[in-house]
């Protein structure tokens, strides 16, 4: 296979005059905004990849005068740190994206739910928010944004747990349906988007859907901001065109000894060297919210897995059985196998359990524990056992 280079893009961090965007959107019909975003094929950049235009249209179609826009800035996935940079570099663009959403959906109030550890960003964000609100007044667009700070629970990045947290309750995911677009924050229709998604919306409004679609593949349009970490000489934040293979990625970022890449953080998939070539980073292959962690041959995949399971055991909200108890069983289970207290066949039982967790858990957290577990155990079984 011919090797092509990973294409660097500079759309997200590009400085944009928000005024121009706002001028444009106040003249646009709300439905035309939804249509433009829908045509761009923009998919949610938090990781789940729900079509943004569709989400907005669902919320727009809801009757009722009170609706909300929520920016999910509770970036907690291990190995993901791109939203922090976006909020730091181009906070105005994030607010501008929310304004676009508010116009599309018909919302007058927005919330930014900021990860607790990103508290240091608040002075900067508030400064920008004052300017933003002044601009809102100038354009006679009735939309106000409030910043809410999380308190460190990973689960509050799950959209419905995030709503519970904003509402002042314990951050526990809700049952779905109903989905946030019909019953969301404070029981009202809500469009909730990742920080990066909102900035992409600005890019789409600025340059048009067709320009956005020039990048990427059929299933994964546009670019994506990646947080690269692990065994790499070039860790950091990179905006890259979607659709590359893991191999191409490793060529660019690896240290020459990469044995596996964890795509999508603790809740994502582990791609072993033998699959680098065939695996596309994107919605047709392995999706990611941004986290790309490289492991070279000095790393013990048992330790990697143990670390992830330890994380989930602590960060499960604890309400549903498969997740609360399942995580503990997986963690204690691999320990028991490693120690020799359980034989290697027990791993098969644990893989079955991970499948149950994927199928029967209440929210995305429990449903995705099996991703890392399954892919690491499948590909590095010997490292887990011996």
């Amino acid at each position, binding site marked *: 296979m011919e090797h092509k280079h990973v294409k660097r893009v500079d759309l997200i961090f590009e400085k944009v005059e928000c005024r121009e965007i706002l001028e444009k959107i106040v003249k646009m019909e709300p439905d035309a905004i939804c249509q433009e975003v829908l045509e761009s094929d923009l998919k949610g950049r938090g990781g789940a990849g729900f079509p943004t235009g569709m989400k907005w249209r669902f919320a727009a179609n809801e009757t009722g005068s009170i609706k909300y826009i929520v920016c999910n800035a509770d970036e907690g996935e291990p190995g993901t740190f791109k939203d922090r940079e976006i909020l730091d570099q181009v906070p105005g663009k994030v607010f501008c994206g929310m304004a676009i959403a508010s116009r599309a959906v018909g919302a007058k109030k927005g919330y930014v739910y900021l990860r607790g550890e990103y508290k240091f960003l608040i002075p900067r964000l508030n400064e920008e928010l004052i300017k933003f609100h002044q601009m809102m007044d100038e354009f006679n667009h009735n939309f106000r944004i409030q910043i809410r700070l999380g308190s460190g629970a990973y689960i509050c990045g799950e959209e419905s747990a995030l709503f519970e947290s904003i509402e002042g309750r314990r951050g526990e995911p809700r049952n779905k349906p109903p989905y946030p677009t019909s019953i969301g924050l404070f029981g009202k229709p809500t469009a909730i988007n990742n920080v990066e998604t909102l900035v992409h919306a600005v890019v789409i409004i600025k340059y048009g859907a067709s320009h956005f679609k020039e990048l990427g593949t059929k299933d994964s349009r546009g670019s994506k901001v990646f947080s690269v970490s692990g065994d790499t000489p070039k860790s950091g934040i990179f905006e890259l065109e979607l659709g590359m293979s893991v191999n191409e990625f490793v060529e660019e970022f690896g240290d020459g000894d990469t044995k596996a890449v964890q795509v999508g953080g603790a809740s994502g998939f582990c791609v072993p060297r033998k699959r680098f070539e065939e695996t596309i980073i994107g919605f047709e292959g392995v999706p990611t919210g941004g986290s790309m962690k490289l492991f070279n041959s000095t790393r013990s995949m048992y330790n990697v897995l143990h670390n992830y399971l330890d994380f*989930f055991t*602590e960060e499960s909200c*604890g*309400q549903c*059985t498969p997740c609360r*108890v399942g995580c503990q069983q997986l963690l204690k*289970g691999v320990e028991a196998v490693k120690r020799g207290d359980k034989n290697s066949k027990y791993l098969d039982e644990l893989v079955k359990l991970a499948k149950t967790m994927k*199928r*029967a858990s*209440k929210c995305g957290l429990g449903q995705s524990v099996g991703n890392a577990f399954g892919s690491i155990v499948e590909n590095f079984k010997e490292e887990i056992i011996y």
Partner: protein
Amino acid sequence: MVSLSINGMLVKVPKGTTVLDAAKKQNFRIPTLCHHDDLCVAGNCRVCVVEQLGGKALLAACATPVSEGMQILTNSLKVRSARKHVIELLLSEHNADCTKCYKNGMCELQNLSNEFCVGDHLFLELIDLKNYTIDRFSPSIQKDDSKCIRCQRCVRTCEELQGVNALTVAHKGENQKISTFEDLSMAEVICTNCGQCINRCPTGALVERTYLDEVWDAILDPKKHVVVQTAPAVRVGLGEELGFEPGSRVTGKMVSALKRLGFDSVLDTDFSADLTIMEEGTELLTRLKKALVDKDPTVALPMTTSCSPGWIKFIEHSFPEYLPNVSTCKSPQQMFGALAKTYYSQVRKLEPKDVVSVSIMPCTAKKYEANRPEMRSSGYKDVDYVLTTRELARMIKQAGIDFNKLKEDKYDSLMGVSTGAGVIFGATGGVMEAALRTAYEIITGREVPFENLNITAVRGMEGVRVASVQIEECKEEWSFLNGVELKCAVAHGLVNARKLMNAVKSGELEVHFIEVMACPGGCLGGGGQPIPTNEKIRKKRTEAIYAEDMSMKIRKSHENPEIIRIYKEFLGEPLGHKSHELLHTHYTKRVRY
């Protein structure tokens, strides 16, 4: 209507129906643990998962509304495997020492593990019993976290039905637990001891503090004279524990069983309920007189009832500024207890120290009430032991009595005669109705102007009910009440009590007399009543209570011959000196934290 298929069978159900209920309609029972008819949907135990054809994830049947064309499988391979996993996971963090458990044989988790043949321990044992101690500080409720499956039924009960929030979820992940404020014992927090959480706990994590052994010891001690009183709601609930349908009246069989158990005298709390009406009715009229005639600004109105110890603890914590409004009357249980060791002992020529007074209550808060320091006006502990309806059923089983075959028997005399007014204390609105039957007649000399004395306006399952009675043509000494519209309000379930009190506080609601029962449906839905409970069952018990009332010869408290006798021979008059000494008390302001 929405059509869908359940295991290939078509079914039509109204929009908004859950998959769980749609399946039930097709005669497919889907197992549940966190689901409860009285509570909001949680969807957290995941034992009710079902498969939707074409869907990736399984659905929680209790939390998923039906949609058109849905094809549901309730017993597919994926479902069975997931369900068994869920049960096994729950067992792996559960103290499954079933034979030692109070709920052995009555545990929903035990039933499920039996149904699914979870014999071999597939997963690792996660629970370390060294880390657990049973909270036995409360005289009413025993909390054992090692048996908790985190279904949160208790938390939802405490919040949604009672508005108390004594129980809450704390921590996350592996450390998640059902806890109290600062993880204090149940005895040290704002718990009202209502026991509604016990009624809904699927396992043995929340149970009543039991005093069965103490009662047996007293019965079997030849030196002790053991009197037992039975609350009105027990007779319409006990049957459920012993093989009868909900709503069965088993008064006669219960009396017969109690005698066989060896109680020396089987008496009736209904008697002291009638006494309560005499005292409380007079107290209300006295307060009205002070307010209307003497224009005394210090008199506290509206007056509220004081029969429900859950309500008392609630108001002490949550509305202490309204404590002067609470009737000073002790509850019927405590009036009975005080008289058992005075009047009863005197007439029966017994030494009060040899008398043991036991009460059978539909309630767990009564256990707390009996232990209050205020409740020793006879010079002894007025009520020595309180057993719940469930505990009595257990005693009957322990004694090997075939309840069904028992002949009906009658209460013993002296504090054993009662009226229909006493019986309806067991249902929400009952105290109000009984009080009105008597008060109206005291004031006007005529019976209450309702057909068959049934004041239906104060009955029912509405959370807060308001009613009024127009008072006209009074007797001379009550002429100041001529033309007064006596307004009353009734609430059951503490969440409704809070609504009612907030309305009183804001001035939105102006009434003279308030009845509050802490438990949904009144005492018949009490925390000591048979499990399970739901509105349908509570309605059956309510019907039974009113049927019992209709079956009584005397249906007004002031016509109870034993009441007339006790005033003549012992108490003198309502609110008299002796009454004050034995039958009245005051309560204490408590903090929320």
